[in-house]
C-alpha cells in the first residue's frame, strides 16, 4: 500500500509539473476558462431563482454553493501567464499578473463566501441565504471589478 501511495504521489507530481509547464494553447485555455466562469454563473443564476422565490428548490442552494466552492479552487489555475487581453480575445486584464497576490486573495474570497453560503443554506433560512448569496456576488465582483474589462 505504501508503494502504491508513493507511485501515486510521483504520478501526481508529474501531472502537476506538466500542468505548470502549460503547453496548452492560450486560446484553448481562454475557452476553457470562460466555460468555468459560465459554470459558476450557471450556479449563481440557479441560486438566484431560489432566492427570488421563483422556484422552491431551497434544498438545492447548498448543491450550487458547493459547486461554486469547488470551482473557486480552480480559478487561479485557469489564468496562466500569457492569456491576457494584450494579444488575445479575452476580458482578462494584465493587472491579474501584475498583482497576482491581490488576484489570489480575490479568488480566495470566493472560496470563503461560497463555503459560507453552503453552510448557511443548510439552515433553510431565506433571509440568511439571501445575505450570504449577496456576499458571493460581491466576491465575484471583487475579482471582476479590478481584473476584468468592463462589459
Amino acid at each position, binding site marked *: 500500500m505504501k508503494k502504491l501511495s508513493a507511485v501515486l504521489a510521483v504520478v501526481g507530481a508529474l501531472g502537476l509539473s506538466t500542468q505548470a509547464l502549460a503547453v496548452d494553447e492560450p486560446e484553448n485555455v481562454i475557452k476553457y476558462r470562460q466555460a468555468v466562469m459560465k459554470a459558476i454563473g450557471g450556479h*449563481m443564476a440557479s441560486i438566484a431563482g431560489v432566492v*427570488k422565490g421563483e422556484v422552491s428548490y431551497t434544498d438545492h442552494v447548498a448543491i450550487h454553493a458547493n459547486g461554486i466552492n469547488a470551482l473557486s479552487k480552480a480559478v487561479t489555475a485557469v489564468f496562466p501567464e500569457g492569456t491576457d487581453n494584450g494579444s488575445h480575445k479575452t476580458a482578462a486584464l494584465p493587472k491579474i499578473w501584475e498583482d497576482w497576490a491581490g488576484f489570489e486573495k480575490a479568488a480566495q474570497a470566493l472560496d470563503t463566501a461560497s463555503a459560507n453560503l453552503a453552510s448557511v443554506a443548510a439552515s433553510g433560512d431565506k433571509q440568511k441565504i439571501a445575505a450570504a448569496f449577496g456576499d458571493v456576488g460581491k466576491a465575484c465582483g471583487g475579482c471582476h471589478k479590478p481584473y476584468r474589462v468592463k462589459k
Partner: protein
Amino acid sequence: MRYPRKGKGRGLRRVRSNLARVAALSVIGLVVLARSAAAQGDATKGEYLFRAAGCYACHTRPVSGARPLAGGRAFETPFGTFYSPNITPDPDHGIGRWGLADFARALRLGEAPDGSHYFPAFPFTSYSGMRDRDLADLWAYLKGVDPFPEPNREHELNFPFGFRFLAGLWKWLFFEPGSFEPDPARDVLWNRGAYLTRHLSHCGECHTPRNLLGALQDDRYLAGTLKGPDGKKVPNITPHSGDGIGDWSESDITFFLQLGVLPDGDVAGGAMEDVIREGTGHLTDQDRKAIAVYLKSLPEHPGP
C-alpha cells in the same frame, strides 16, 4: 433636432420664458423653500434619499479606502475629464458653509452659491424635479456626515468647454427646471418609479445617450450609450428584447438592484456596482419594484 427633457421642440420665446422662470425660481422659490417648514429636514429620511439619489457613487473615488463623499472621482467624457467635488461639510473644501437655499439652488438650478453654473456632468437636470420635502431631508442628512478637508480637483476639459459661461449657454438651450408631476392615469407604484428613475435616482444620466453638446437625447431615453461616464459602454435598459432588458422579469430587475446579480449569474460591473452597493441595495423592496414597473412600461429602443 429634438430637444431633451420634455421631448418636444421649443421656440426662442419659450426658452426666454423659461429663463424668466429660472430667475423667478432662484429669487423667490428658494427663499420660500428655505424659510418654509421644509427647512427642518429629517436626516433619517435624508439618509434613505441619499441612497436613492446615488450621491455616494459619484462623489467618492472608486478605490478602497477612499474618503466617502470627498469627491475626486474622474468622469471621462468627450468634453474632457470632470472630477466630482467634495460634498462633505468641510467649510473650506466641502459644502460646510452652505445653507439649504444654496443646496436647493445647486440641485434645482445647477448654480453654485456664487452664481456660477455647474456643468451638466452634475445631474441637476434630473435632480431639478426633486420634491421640496426630499431636498430638505437630503440636506439635513448631508450636512451631518463627517467633514473631510480634501481639496477639489479642477476639471480637465478640452478647449473650449472649460469656460463656465458655456455651461450657462448650455442650460439656456437644454435645461428647463421642473417639478415632478405625477401621471393621474397611472397608479401610485408607477408614479413612484417614475419619480425615482427620472429624478432622484437619475438613471438616464448614464443610461441615456447624449447629443454632440452633451444633452440627453430624450427620444432615446435609457437606450444605452457606447460612451458612458467611465468612457465605456452603458447598457440599454429599455424593454427592448435582445438589446435591452425586455427579457428580464420584474423580479430580475428588483433582484439586480438589490444584489447586483444578473439573470445569467454574472454580476454588475463598473459604476453600477457602486450604485447598487451604496444605493439601490439599501432601498425598500417596494421602491425597487416601483423602478422595475416603471422601466417595464417605457418605450423600447434598439442599440446602442
